[in-house]
């Protein structure tokens, strides 16, 4: 009797345990149950209707100079991290503000934002000639840092720091220029050739110098500043070009081969012409006029100006009679030049890896790079190149779809393709976003990117 009661109690307990979950019998759920479960499921929202696209900065290339702005690549801050000499693919640089303009010099970078806050310009990389201004060292308050590993604010002596906006920055070999909208141009860095626009002081020590010079005397407002290797070019609103700095290759375009320490207006073939863009990075300079003509001066050892002259230096701007259509934009590299026409065609000439395979190493007349290499096809006929940029021995082209194509010498991984080999024709760089602008340096590149969604 006792055993029977116990067994019944056990059976009852077991039945209650079985009924612990859903009291419905098991079996494949019917369509109605599935639909109800689906409708009852919670909806997740990852992005709201007014979600904005975010602006980001990506850097890649040689990092030991600090030019990439990521200190853990040079001095690892965790035990497992190893120093990274080269960043072969685009790496995100976290910045608090939206960077509107960036420039890469020879081992250093400047980032500028269009804001009205007090801090408008950040610099990182080499600072041995104070090209990033004076960065006070925390260990010794009297000395400055020679290598800046993180984007550090550059204090500009502005009269109205909360109203002036920085429009553009540009970097050369050891000097930098900052263009503001109402207070002219600020220059800092090496001035041994007068490239900062002030009088050359003999035996001046540039390291740890506080000097930031301001330039205001131009015929109208300056709208573009460009740094060559050791010279500076200024383009004003009226369409005239001023230059100062080293002139041994004629890159100042002033008719002589001497140093100029005060910005002086250029004449020659561009006198009276409305110039809408100037470009330089090495010792050769190009200017584009409103009508679409190209003018060049400076070094021509690599056939950059061989279409007009046999000499290797040209010290007066000369019109380059190319029959390639109306030119929209030009960019100068160390040995090669590139122009973009209104139709969206890209032309290269000069010496080096020009982008038409390993067989084309030098040409004096512009050669077109076929648009199919930039993503143009019958399937997407609207794809065209929107911008061209030049580093010392690399070229970069941005399409209207926001894709970045690079080619040239892959010095210390600066192309960003992920490989260390040179690239003989345009190759797409994988960037997680739409590339808005890119700045090319000697061995590193910086790009401003907007996220997709």
């Amino acid at each position, binding site marked *: 009797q006792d055993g029977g009661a116990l067994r019944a109690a056990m059976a009852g307990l077991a039945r209650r345990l079985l009924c612990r979950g859903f009291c419905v019998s098991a079996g494949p759920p019917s369509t109605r149950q599935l639909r109800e479960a689906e409708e009852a499921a919670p909806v997740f929202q990852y992005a709201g209707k007014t979600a904005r696209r975010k602006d980001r900065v990506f850097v890649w290339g040689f990092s030991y100079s600090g030019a990439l702005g990521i200190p853990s690549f040079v001095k690892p801050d965790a035990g497992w991290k190893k120093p990274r000499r080269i960043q072969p693919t685009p790496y995100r640089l976290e910045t608090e503000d939206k960077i509107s303009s960036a420039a890469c010099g020879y081992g250093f970078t400047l980032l500028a934002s269009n804001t009205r806050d007090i801090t408008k310009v950040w610099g990182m990389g080499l600072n041995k000639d104070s090209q990033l201004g004076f960065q006070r060292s925390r260990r010794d308050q009297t000395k400055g840092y020679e290598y800046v590993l993180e984007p550090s604010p550059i204090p500009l002596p502005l009269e109205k720091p909360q109203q002036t906006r920085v429009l553009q920055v540009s970097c050369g070999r050891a000097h930098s220029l900052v263009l503001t909208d109402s207070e002219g141009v600020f220059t800092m860095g090496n001035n041994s050739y007068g490239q900062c626009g002030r009088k050359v002081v003999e035996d001046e020590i540039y390291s740890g110098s506080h000097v930031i010079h301001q330039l205001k005397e131009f015929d109208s407002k300056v709208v573009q500043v460009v740094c060559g290797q050791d010279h500076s070019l200024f383009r004003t609103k009226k369409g005239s070009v001023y230059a100062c700095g080293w002139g041994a290759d004629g890159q100042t375009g002033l008719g002589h081969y001497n140093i100029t320490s005060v910005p002086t207006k250029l004449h020659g073939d561009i006198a009276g012409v409305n110039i809408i863009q100037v470009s330089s990075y090495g010792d050769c300079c190009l200017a584009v006029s409103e009508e679409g003509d190209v003018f060049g001066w400076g070094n021509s050892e690599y056939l950059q100006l061989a279409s007009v002259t046999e000499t290797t230096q040209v010290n007066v701007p000369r019109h380059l009679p190319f029959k390639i259509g109306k030119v929209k934009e030009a960019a100068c590299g160390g040995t090669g030049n590139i122009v973009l026409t209104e139709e969206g065609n890209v032309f290269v000439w000069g010496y080096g890896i020009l982008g038409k395979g390993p067989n084309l190493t030098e040409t004096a007349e512009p050669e077109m790079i076929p648009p199919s290499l930039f993503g143009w096809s019958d399937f997407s006929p609207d794809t065209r190149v929107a911008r061209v940029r030049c580093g010392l021995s690399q070229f970069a082209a941005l399409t209207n779809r926001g894709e970045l194509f690079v080619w040239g010498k892959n010095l210390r991984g600066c192309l960003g393709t992920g490989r260390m080999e040179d690239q*003989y*024709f345009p190759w797409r760089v*994988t960037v997680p976003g739409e590339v808005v602008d890119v700045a090319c340096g000697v061995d590193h590149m910086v790009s401003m990117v907007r996220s*997709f969604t």
Partner: protein
Amino acid sequence: LNAAPERAPRQRVRFLPSPAPGGGGAVELVAASVPVLADHPLVRGPRFRKLKIGAGHRLDVKASGVFVLGIGHGNKLLSDLYNCHLTKVYTVGGLFGKATDDFSDTGNLIEKTTFDHITREKLERILAVIQGTNQKALLMYSNIDMKTQEAYELAVKGLIRPMGKSPPIITAIRCLQFALPEFQLEIHCLHETQQYLRKVVHEIGLELKSSAVCTQVRRTRDGVFTVDDALPRTQWNLQSIQEAMRNCQLKVETELAKTLA
């Protein structure tokens, strides 16, 4: 097929005895061309007892569209066509707002998300990126040394294609229709499976910060065969099949000659 008029039987020259013109029992051999008895229908039986049918590129159960079959000697052409590595075109339909485990709308629901922030512009941007990364994969898997002039020339013409095994590559993708929550894409691809295309739809949904499932996969072109050449179920009879084979023969031959040259 067996009822169709057959080939004439083979003829063979045989020396048959026939009575001599002289008369009286002498027999001489006269050459005559007679049909071979082995070809006689009553001896041989029906000409076709079995048909060897081979399939071209796979098409899974949930997908539809052009499916290439080879009959008899055509199976050899099938393997040649496979080695040509031609692109296939699919029309893929998708739906935003859901994520399922097998990426199609009949799977188990994993998550529901909002999709009102998605615009056609955002979708086209994502598609441009997909095309660009696959373009790079195309160049990388084609096993050409990037440093040669030959590589440059092929890249300009757009003829670089992986001629061996490679992971699925999308050569072109664009949006045909966009009406939230539905959208339709046209995808040109190589070496793919339909499940990979469904996965691509799912990834597009993730990239747009939402989720997407694939509702329809339809192959509209397989190499040289398009939907116009294909026979729908109502036309699965002998005459249409023979006519279709005749129409496509020329196309297949020119394509093979061009690619395998």
